[in-house]
């Protein structure tokens, strides 16, 4: 299947720092791709670069291919035509993305007019359908409500409804459940899965939580310090990680282990974006690092659709099969 979106060698420079450096990935139709990483990994910047939502001083290079065009370097006007209509985005904190002084109904119909040219009763009818679709009960009455009258979970549903108004082919979701309680998080993730199936829409889900990736995504890209460490099918990566960072991240989650046993945590902290290590960016924290890690490792195939930028991939695989 050909890719719907193809990102190649994306780099983002802000001043002297390069917080995203050579990131490549594809998204297929109706696919849920996870981008996972810790703070400072560049995962949110990567997502925002697709819709040109970066701060003015950020310089973007590389290719972002969408429908045969490279989005990098396109004018604001050209991207604006795409935004919401073909590619939509939802954020971690819906309250800052919703207008507090407009009713939800107005915010959805505004989006419908902008993207589909729907007005009047047709727009109202569609707005009710959209709220129904995202699971907001009593939709017709709720159109009259303001954002503050919704709970956090319901606001996120409203944000998703607004994002769906333009019938996008791709939804970018930036930590959409991080601020929510676990049962509500579960509801929103299940909603995204259902929408993906029903609307045949692709989703890029950015998260810091490997557990969310495991339950929601087919493929994942693991980001660290602005580079892809490992990417491939979620099942394969969780079963047989091929990068020392992925293994360290998995072992930091206190789940697979006997209770109260020390976790095999990753020592130290991620590098400062202005002072990245010269070779593998994870090497200074890596217990498997060797002198050859001082040269930047290429992202190479280690299995079907599975690629890793770790020259110690074999050693990682051996280590990952040893019970913790």
């Amino acid at each position, binding site marked *: 299947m050909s890719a719907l979106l193809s990102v190649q060698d994306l780099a983002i420079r802000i001043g002297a720092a390069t917080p995203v450096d050579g990131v490549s990935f594809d998204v297929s139709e109706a696919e849920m791709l996870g981008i996972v990483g*810790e*703070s400072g990994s560049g995962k949110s910047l990567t997502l925002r670069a697709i819709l040109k939502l970066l701060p003015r001083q950020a310089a973007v290079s590389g290719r972002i291919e969408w429908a045969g065009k490279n989005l990098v370097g396109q004018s604001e006007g050209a991207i604006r035509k795409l935004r919401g209509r073909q590619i939509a985005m939802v954020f971690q904190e819906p309250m800052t993305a919703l207008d507090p002084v407009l009713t939800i109904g107005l915010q959805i119909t505004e989006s419908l007019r902008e993207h589909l040219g729907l007005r009047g009763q047709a727009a109202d009818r569609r707005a009710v359908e959209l709220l129904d679709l995202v699971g907001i009960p009593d939709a017709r009455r709720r159109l009259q409500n303001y954002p503050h009258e919704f*709970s956090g*979970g*319901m606001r996120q549903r409203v944000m998703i409804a607004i994002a769906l108004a333009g019938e996008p082919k791709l939804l970018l979701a930036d930590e959409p459940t991080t601020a929510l*309680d*676990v*049962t*509500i*998080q*579960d*509801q929103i993730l*299940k*909603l995204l*899965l*259902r929408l993906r*199936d029903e609307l045949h829409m692709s989703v890029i889900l950015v998260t*810091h*939580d*490997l*557990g*969310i*990736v*495991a*339950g*929601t995504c087919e493929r994942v890209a693991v980001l660290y310090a602005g580079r892809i460490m490992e990417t491939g*099918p*979620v*099942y394969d990566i*969780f079963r047989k990680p091929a990068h020392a960072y992925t293994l*360290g*991240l*998995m*072992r*930091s*989650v*206190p*789940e*697979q*282990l006997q*209770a*109260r046993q*020390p*976790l*095999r*945590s*990753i*020592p130290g*902290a*991620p590098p400062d974006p202005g002072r990245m290590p010269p070779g593998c960016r994870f090497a200074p924290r890596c217990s498997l690092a060797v002198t050859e890690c001082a040269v930047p490792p290429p992202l190479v195939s280690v299995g079907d659709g599975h690629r890793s930028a770790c020259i110690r991939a074999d050693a990682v695989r051996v280590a990952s099969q040893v019970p913790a």
Partner: protein
Amino acid sequence: MSGALLVADDLERGFRVRRGLGSALRGGPPPMVRALNGVSLHIERGETLAVVGESGCGKSTLARALVRLIALDAGQIMFDGDDVRTLRGEALRRYNRRVQMIFQDPYGSLNPRMTVGQMLEEALRVHRLVPPADRPARVAELLSLVRLPADAAHRQPHEFSGGQRQRIAIARALSVQPELLIADEIVSALDVSVQAQILNLLLDLQERLGLAILFVSHDLRVVRHLAHRVAVMYLGRVVELGPAAQVFDAPRHPYTQALLRAAPTMQPPEPGTHAVIKAALAGELPSPLAIPSGCPFHPRCPAAFDRCTREVPRIHMSPGGHLATCHLLDGL
């Protein structure tokens, strides 16, 4: 319960809500949020008791009430034989030393103008624990206890990362040799690799110092790893409490069961199989201003029947000190 360090009995606390003009004109009593609605639990010496629940369940109010940052409306807290709510003067100071609290955001609780060394010395001075001449040595000892470099004493909080600041907060809490640590979501804001370091530190400190820890968290994976016993709260009540292994492997309350199903796990579905699309629990937390009658969980409970809407379920005790409040347990 002979070894219990702290016993909380039937704690109640309500918060009045500022009301709008409409409500004021209609009259009647101002609306009240019942944050704690008869909470009872105890903490043994040297154990970790985790309190889990979603926002609004009352877990942070409980933590703050135990260190007297929030006054209670009713109920009793006994700490090592003393009635905590009546403590005054020197006895209260002693309690404030023996029970230390750490918060989610260490930056908010560390003085930005003081060096780490000054902060740690201040705690020692206030509680007159160490003679002035010995304080620098004690500071160095504390820093090594939480695995910070010795030169950290001369630096200010802004020079540290989030995980290191949480280590500083832990060092300050430990400086006065507490017996009980109250930790409110202390790893929630940290990246998972840093979180793992802090969890290891807590496990190690507990083994070495014999500390009791009340660990408040919404993260079930962390709680399962750390806790000896777990209390699950919902709308101001403890709905299930017991040894961690029992609560996680054989949860008895439908709310606990749903929480565990909703929590992300590290087990992706087999290739070819489809991810589960049904949510573990429908609906949202009701307004704490209007707590449902009977069992507060009944509007969201998949197993609720008519009795649940009328009667508050009693506490069912099973072997091993595992209790749950659910009518379904009546016939068992």
